[in-house]
């Protein structure tokens, strides 16, 4: 099943404002991180989701608090869309008091309740199966959602997991953020066949989403997610998307032309054009808020960790 979610219907106003807030929160959070790196205020590594923000935002109202979410290296958007908590995440990345994981996890290793990210590609799919066994047994309709990139289909664990998810009818949703690149490697160099066919290999349900209109995406996905919840059938959702920023920091090997072309598909300009006033208001609010947050967090003492002793 390939469903194009392109033509944007009009979203309800209340939702729209909340959506814009989340979208722009993620966008400017990521921009802020790149700034902080540039000015030497951050070290370690970070992977921003510039261009892909709309994916977790689209999913947010479709997911329940008792769903598990497995995120990956490019996970800030997933976290912010789930918790709307730039403070805990920024403190985490800066290693400051109030950090959601006490500064231990950092950008790539976040856990909060039923949300968890980690830095080894593909590792989370088998884990999502285990969680889903329990969710299915609980019988409350909870699902395990795992975000992976297109490049992560290189990992054998992905296939081991899909096979088991289908064999045992587990409520697992694999969200593929297909930005057609993995670090510097284009998908043509990385992937034979297609993601659709790989889901088909295991008779796993598959939906293809092209376009960034939130309401259209939600309309497509609502019944599909209901099926996962009620019939416990795993589902792969492939989002056609684009990574607008570097893989990590200053490591983009793509041409400026190519980046400009990708940028033409960015949700930012489209939403800005469609709702100029609201957009501007929200964007200013968010930028002000983030700037304040940054200054405040910078002044905080370092995060404290009660290390487990043997």
């Amino acid at each position, binding site marked *: 099943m390939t469903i194009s979610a392109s033509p944007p219907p009009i979203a309800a106003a209340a939702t729209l404002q909340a959506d814009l807030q989340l979208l722009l929160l993620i966008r400017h959070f990521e921009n802020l991180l790149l700034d902080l790196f540039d000015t030497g205020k951050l070290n370690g590594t970070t992977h921003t989701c510039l261009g892909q923000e709309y994916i977790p935002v689209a999913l947010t109202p479709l997911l329940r608090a008792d769903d*598990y979410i497995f995120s990956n290296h490019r996970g800030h958007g997933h976290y912010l869309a789930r918790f709307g908590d730039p403070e805990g995440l920024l403190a985490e990345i800066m290693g400051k008091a109030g*950090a*959601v*994981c*006490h*500064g*231990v*996890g950092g950008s790539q*290793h*976040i*856990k909060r309740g039923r949300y*968890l990210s*980690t830095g*080894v590609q593909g*590792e*989370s*799919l*088998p*884990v*999502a*199966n*285990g*969680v*889903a*066994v*329990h*969710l299915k*047994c609980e019988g409350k309709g909870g699902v*395990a959602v795992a975000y992976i990139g297109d490049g992560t289909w290189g990992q*054998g*664990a992905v296939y*081991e*997991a899909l*096979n*088991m998810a289908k*064999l*045992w009818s587990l409520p697992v949703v694999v969200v593929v953020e297909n930005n057609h690149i993995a670090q510097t490697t284009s998908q043509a160099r990385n992937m034979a066949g297609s993601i659709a066919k790989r889901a088909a290999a295991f008779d796993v349900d598959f939906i293809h989403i092209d376009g960034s209109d939130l309401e259209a995406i939600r309309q497509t996905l609502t019944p599909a997610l209901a099926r996962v919840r009620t019939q416990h059938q795993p589902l792969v959702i492939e989002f056609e998307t684009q990574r607008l920023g570097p893989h990590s920091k200053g490591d983009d090997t793509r041409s400026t032309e190519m980046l400009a072309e990708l940028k033409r598909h960015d949700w930012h300009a489209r939403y800005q054009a469609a709702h100029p006033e609201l957009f501007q208001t929200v964007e200013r609010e968010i930028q002000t808020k983030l700037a304040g947050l940054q200054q405040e967090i910078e002044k905080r003492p370092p995060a404290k*960790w009660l*290390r*487990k002793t*043997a």
Partner: protein
Amino acid sequence: MSERVVENLNRSLKALMAADASVYFIGEDVLDPYGGAFKVSRGLSGSFPERVFSTPISEAGIMGLAGGLALAGQKAIVELMFGDFIFLAFDQIINFASKSVTMYGETLPYHLLVRCPVGGNRGYGATHSQSVQKFFIGIPNLALYELSPLHDNNVWIPKLMNCGQPCVLFENKILYTQPQLGPGPVDDLFQVDFLDAAGLMARACIEPDPAGKVLLLAPGGMFHACLKAARQLFLEQEIEVQIVVPLQLYPFPAESLRELLPQYRAIHVVEESTAGGTWGAEVTATIQKIFAGNFPRPIHLIHSLDSIIPSARHLESEVLVQPDTIVKAVSGRAT
């Protein structure tokens, strides 16, 4: 007929799953009537069909599944068919399960028990005979245990399952068909007692006083080889040997042996692993550490050769530690 080790282990698993509905059992070919390659899981799928998962041949996927169950607050036991395949699941063990306990800044209770059959002397060849214990030493939040005929699994399996961090239980395959033993006499010469209150350290000795005797410190899989060697050393050379069998390999609880160890005349750490980076080296380092580097006696390591494990039995027994290897090492140091 006394209980065999495989029956003791199987009974403990059944009891655990009966008592605790949050325990899952996962492995390849573990359904009845087969009950796993070594029959340890017999009867589990019959009694707990919804909690026993017989899986595809996907060691990494299986370990991840178990990790996910543990993450969701459940308890998971993984049976690997041969320990040699654990390397396929190494990433899930080191980078997911054990890390999750502390990587997120708080201590996450985690209930995962990996059962890992190891060892050779069965002519199975190089990819089905390894003693892989040493490769898992020094992973933060991962505790290692070894099946022993002297320790009652009915006591220990629930403890391992509930200790709050992932554990691996290594099981030397030759033990399964051996009789389950315990405190008291094991033959006409040797009797078993426990050295610590917890009951982690079992000892087989002719008489308890350690003074001037030789210690063989050996995990459960080596018990019978050590016992055979100890009998021979006593009967043929009048060398009196005590055998201490720790259930827990890592972290090695050396503290509980602090008083005892210096009293021995000589100490040998015995294991089936091939040479290099052995458990014995870790045990030595741990003992030296609690004695601030000044433990008064050399600690000798007895292990298999630096070699792959060949298939033909006569070649295999040249590579792997045999009772005779132990006899030679002990009497060689005794003169």
